[in-house]
C-alpha cells in the first residue's frame, strides 16, 4: 500500500472519531478516564474470547464459531463495565461533590455512556484495522489474485462503522439500563442482536470475491437505526432540539 492510500484509509477510519474526541471528550478528564477504562474492558473480553478460541482446538479454523462468542463476551463486559460505573457513581455521590461539581465534573450519565461506548469502539475498531495496517507496509496493494481493490477502503469504512456503532450501542445499553422497566431488556437485547448481526455479516467478506457492499450497507443501516433509537430513547423531539439550538 502506498503512502497516499495509507493516509486516505487512516483518515477515513479515524477522521470522524478524532473530531468526536476533540469536541466531546478531550476537555473532560473524567470522560477520558471512562473511555480508556472501557477500552481496557474491551481488551479483557478479547482475552477471554481468545482463551476460548485456544481451548476449543478443532474449531480454530472456523471463524463462524469464534465470532458469536466474541460478541457475547464483549456485551458481557459492557454490562460488567456498567455495573462498575454504577458502583463508582454511588461512591462519588457519597463523597463531597461540591468541589468537583464546581470544576465541572458532573456525573452526566449520558456523557458516561457515550464515553464508554466511544472507548469500546475505538479499541475494537483499532483491532479491526491494525492487522491490516501491519501488512500494508510495502509497495503493493491487493488484487493480484483477483481480490477486490477496494479492500482497504472498505476496511477503513467498516472500522469507522465499528467505532460509531459501538459508541451508540454504549449509549443505548447504559441509558436503557438506567431507565429500568421494559427498557432494561429491550435496550441490551437490541444491542446484542444488532452486534451479532453486524459481526456475522462481515464473515461474508472471507470469500474470494467478497461483497463489501453488503456488510457496509448493513453496517451503516444498523448505525442509522441505532442513532434513531438513541434519539428516541433520550426523548428528543424537534422542539427540544430547536430549543437547544437557540
Amino acid at each position, binding site marked *: 500500500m502506498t503512502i497516499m492510500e495509507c493516509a*486516505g484509509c487512516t483518515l*477515513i477510519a479515524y477522521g470522524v472519531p478524532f473530531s468526536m474526541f476533540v469536541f466531546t471528550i478531550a476537555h*473532560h478528564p473524567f470522560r477520558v478516564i471512562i473511555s480508556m477504562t472501557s477500552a481496557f474492558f474491551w481488551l479483557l473480553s478479547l482475552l477471554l474470547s481468545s482463551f476460548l478460541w485456544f481451548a476449543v482446538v478443532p474449531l480454530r479454523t472456523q471463524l463462524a464459531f469464534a465470532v458469536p462468542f466474541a460478541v457475547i463476551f464483549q456485551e458481557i463486559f459492557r454490562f460488567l463495565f456498567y455495573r462498575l460505573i454504577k458502583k463508582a457513581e454511588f461512591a462519588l455521590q457519597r463523597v463531597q461533590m461540591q468541589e468537583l461539581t464546581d470544576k*465541572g465534573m458532573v456525573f*452526566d450519565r449520558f456523557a458516561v455512556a457515550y464515553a464508554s461506548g466511544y472507548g469500546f469502539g475505538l479499541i475494537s475498531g483499532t483491532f479491526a484495522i491494525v492487522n491490516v495496517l501491519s501488512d500494508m507496509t510495502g509497495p503493493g496493494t491487493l*488484487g493480484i489474485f483477483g481480490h477486490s481493490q477496494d479492500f482497504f477502503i472498505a476496511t477503513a469504512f467498516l472500522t469507522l462503522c465499528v467505532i460509531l456503532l459501538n459508541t451508540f450501542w454504549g449509549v443505548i445499553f447504559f441509558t436503557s439500563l438506567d431507565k429500568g422497566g421494559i427498557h432494561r431488556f429491550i435496550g441490551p437485547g437490541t444491542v446484542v442482536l444488532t452486534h451479532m448481526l453486524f459481526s456475522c455479516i462481515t464473515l461474508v467478506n472471507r470469500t474470494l470475491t467478497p461483497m463489501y457492499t453488503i456488510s457496509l450497507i448493513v453496517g451503516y443501516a444498523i448505525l442509522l437505526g441505532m442513532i434513531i433509537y438513541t434519539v428516541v430513547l433520550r426523548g428528543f423531539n424537534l422542539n427540544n432540539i430547536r430549543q437547544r439550538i437557540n
Partner: protein
Amino acid sequence: MNKICLLALRRSYATTSTSTFRAADTIIKKTEHGNPKPDPNKLVFGANFSDHMLTIKHTNASGWEKPVIEPLKPFSIHPAAKVLHYAIEIFEGLKAYRGNDGKIRLFRPDLNMKRMLTSAERSVLPTFDGNELLECIKKLIQVDADWVPRSTSSTLYIRPTLIGTEPTLGVGASNESLLFVVTGPVGPYFPTGFKPVSLLADTFHCRAFPGGVGAYKAGSNYGPTIYVNQLAHSKGCQQVLWLYGNKQHITEVGTMNVFIYLKNKKGSNELVTPPLNGLILPGVTRQSILDLGRTWKELTVSEREITMDELLEAHRENRLLEMFGAGTACIVCPVERIIYEGKEYNLATMNKGAPLTIRFHDELVNIQFGRKPIYLFLQIFVVFCSQPKRVVDRMYISFDRARYCVRRLNGTHEIGCQSSIRGNSGRMYMIDNDQEFHIYLTDKKLIDSFNSFIIVLNVNLFNTYYIDYLMKHLDKKLNGLLLYLKSNLSRPLDFSHDDQCPNNRNSFYLNQTEKINWNSKGTSLFFRSFPFPIMLIDEEDDYKRLIEFYRQFNNSQSSPACGLELKSFQNAAHTTKTCMKRNDISHSLIDLQEIFCDPIGGLNIYSKLPQSIKIKPDQRSLKSVILILVTTDSFQMFLKPKGSTGGVQQPATALITFLTLAHLIGQEQDEFKKQNKEIIFVTLDGDALDYSASFKFMFDMINGYFPIGNKNEQPIKIEHIHSIIEFQSLSMTNELWLHTHPSSLINQTFIDILLRNNPMINLIRPNSPLPPASSQIFLRQTLSLSFPVYILSSTNQNQLLNHYYHSFFDDPSTLSINISTLEYNTTTEISLWIKRIVEPFAQTLIESLVGIKKNVIIKQEIINNLVYCILKNINCPLIHNVTNQSIGNTFKPFDQTSMPFSINTYPISTTPTFPFIKYVLGYFLRDRSYDIQNLTKISCKERAYNDSFCSYTFVDGYAPSIINEKSFSGYCVRSYLRFVQSISPAFIIENYDLSQTTYPAWTESRWTTISLRLFIIPTRTHEIVTLIIGILLTFISFCVLFFLRYYTKISLFQPSSS
C-alpha cells in the same frame, strides 16, 4: 458364545485405546538439504517421495507417542516384527491437490480416516482420533508444500500406513505398532487422455469372501492379487474383474470399485455398483460418484448386487452403456473389453466416447483442484496450507527460487549489486527482444508516468549494450533488473560475464604489451558495480507464473500495473579495506562482533605418493619436484542456494582429469619408485578471482611453509621445482593445446613424447601468450627463470572454447550429458574422452621420468564414477568407499547435489568440495603396499599415532581401485595429504595495506534476506480518490461537530457545564 467373546474383546480393546496422539504435540525436524523435485511431467506412480515423513509410535503400555515429522529415512525394524510375518498392516491412499489459486486441498480426507480406523480395528491395531491424524497430515504437507506439484494434473499422493511391529512370532495382537505417512508427487493416471482397459473376469480366484477382510484396506488384500493380475496380463488384459460366488457376482476391478451404467429393463438409465456387503472396499471415489450421481436427474443410482449374467445380458441386448472402475489413483477408468469363460466381449463403453465416465472424471477433478464450486454434500473439503490468512499473502507473490547477484569487494573497488535495506521496487516492464526494447525506450509517456521501473529482461539481452543503454536512458528510474530464462532450450549462445581477458589484473603479461581477448564474448558485467539489485529466474514455471500475471495486469493504462520488489541487501560496502576495518570493530554494547564481509578463498590441497617423503636431514636435490595443478573454483554472477553452480567445463572437467591422473600415478607407483622425482598433486581454490590461491601457494613456498604440517619434513623451495603441469579449461574438444613457457627452460623431449603418445595434443609456439591459468602467478613470482610450465588446455592460441565461461550455464548439458539419466557407472562421452587424455599422459610421465615405455590402462568405471560424483551427486558410493563411515556421513546432507564450483569463503561457507578432494586424492595416491597387509582397525589407529607424516584411515575400499579383487572387509590406507587455507596473503601479512595491489584482496559481502515479490501497484486515481474521501470525511465531521459545539447547547459538547 463366539459373539460374546468378540464383544468382550472389543470392549477391552476400546478401553486401552481411548488414548490418541495430538497434532499439536507434533515434533518437526526439517531436513537441511531437500532433494530436487522431479519434473512434474515425468512422474511415475509411487517412485518419488517428498523430503519428510510422519511417524507415530504406539505401545500398549504407554499409548501413543508424540507425532514426529522428520526427513524421510529407512526404518530399522526387528526381523521378528509381526508385520513381516503375518502382514498386520493397513493403509490408506489419498491425494493433495494444488489448485490454480495456490491453495492445497485434500479430497474428503475424513472418509479415509474413518476407513482407516475401521481397518485398524479389524487388524487389532490401536485406534486414534482421525481428526488428529488429519491435522498431522496437514502439517506434513505444510512442511513439504513445495512437493505438491504446481500442475493441473499432477498431485501429491499421501500414504498413511499402520503396522504391528511387536518383535514376537506368536500369532496375536501386536503390542507395539507404528503409524507412518509418506508422501510423493504422482503424475496423472492417463497422461495422454483416457485409455480404456481390458479385464479378465476370473471365475476361479476371488479377492474377498463374506466374513473376510475385503471391506478393509489391509495390505494382505493386495499381495495375493498380483498373481491373478499376472494371469490377466498373460491373456492380454490389464486388470482383473473380481467375481464372487456361484452366481458370479461382480465385485471389483483390479484395485478399484466398479460401476456399470446400463439401461435397465424398465428402460431407464441406471448406474449400478455393488453394495457394501463386506466384499467391497468402501472407496472414497466410489462414495463421491454415488453422491454426485444422485444429484443428477437423468439417471438413477443404485447400490445393488449385479451378476455377470445380468451384465452380459445387457451387453447382448445393447442396453449396456458404460462400465468403469473408480479409485483414487485414476478417479475413473473405462472398461472396453472383458474376457469371461474364454470368450471376449467388447463392451459399448467407448462407442460414444464414454460421456458419463468423462463427466464424472471432469466433475471430480474440477472439485479436487478447486475449480468448481463445491456441492453442499461435499463440503468436507479441507482447505489449508497456502490459504492466505494474512492480507500480505494476498498482496504479494514470492519467487523464492530466483538467482541473485551479490556484492564483492577488492582493495579498491566494489562489484556486484546492491538493493536498499527494504528492497527496491518499481513498475514491472517486460522486454523480450530487441524490438520491444526500443519500443519501450521510445514510449516517453509510459516512462514519465512512473517514478521507478524494474525492467524484466530476457536473459539474451543481458549484455553491456542493453544494460548501458537502459542505465543511461532511465537513470535513477531504473530501480532493478530481473532477468528471465524462458526455458532451457532458449539459452543464450554466449553467456559469460567475466572479462574478455580473464584475470588480467594479475596476469603474467601485466607489463607486456600483448593482451589477448581469450574470452571474446565476455561482458565484464560481473566486475561492474550496480546501484540496484539484479536477479534471474531460471525455472520454467516461475517464468510462466511471472508472465501470466504480467499479461493479466498489463492491458491498459487505467488498470493497475504489476510491480516487482527485489530485495538483496548487502552488508558490505565500498572496499575490502573499509569492510575489514568494520569487521574488527566489535559492538560496544553487546560485545558482539558483527561481520560484514569474508575473505575469498577455500583450501589448497596437496598430496603425493607417501613413499617420497623427505624427512630432515635428508637433503632434497634441486629440481626434483613436479607440481601438477588444477583449480577447484569458478564464479558466476547469479547465485542460488540450491541450484547448479555451473563450472563443468571450467574447472570440473580438468578436475576429473586431474583425479584420474592421480589414480593412474598411484596405480603405477612401483614404476615411479624407480626414479627420484616427486610428483605433487595440488588443487588451488580461489584462482577464479585474481589467482589469490596461487599467490598464497607461492607465498607459502617462499616462506618455507610448503609442505605444511610437519616441521621435520624438508621444505620445498622454488629451486626444488622441476616443472609445473597444469590442467586448465578442458572442455571435450577434439584437439587439445599445450601451452609452454619459457622457451629457454622447457624440456623438448617431454613435449615430443607427449605429442607422440597423444596425437590430439597440439603444441602452441613457445613464448606466445599464456591463457588464463594459475601457472601465470608461478611464473610471475619467479620471473620465469626457475622452471618451465606446461598448460594442457582446450584453449587454443587465442580463444577459450567455452561459451559459458564462468557462468551457471556451464552445466553438464554442455558436455552432452543428460543429468537425469546419468547413473553411477554410466559411460559417457566425457568419461571416454578423459580416458583418451589421461592414459597417454601418464604413459608420457613414466616414459620421460623412468625411461621405460609402458602401456597404462585405467578402468573406465573409475572415470565414470568420478563424473557421476562430481557432476551429479557428491554423496556417491565412491566417497563412502574411500572414507570411514563417520566421515562418509558428512556427505549425506549434500545428497543429489553436484560439487559446487563457486566463490568460497572458507571456513564460513562449508562446501563439500574440500573433504571430497582430500579423501579421494589421498586414497588414489595411497601406499599400495598397505592394501595387502591386512591390518586391523586398531593397528591402523596405532600406526596413525606413531607416524606424524602420513595419515591412516580404515576404509571399506573402493573395488575398481583394488588390483587384488579379493573381497576385503576393510583395510588400512596410508596416504600423504596436506591442506592449507587459500586466502590471499593480503589477509595474512600483518599490517598489510589492503588498498595496495601487490596481492589480490577479494572479499564477499554477507547478506541476510533475498526476496523477489510480485504485486500490484494501485492506480493513481484509486490512490487520490481514497485520500480525498479521507480528507473530506475528516473535514466534514470536524465542521459539523464544530458547529454543534459553538452554536448549540447540547450538553455533550459543552467543555464544562459551568
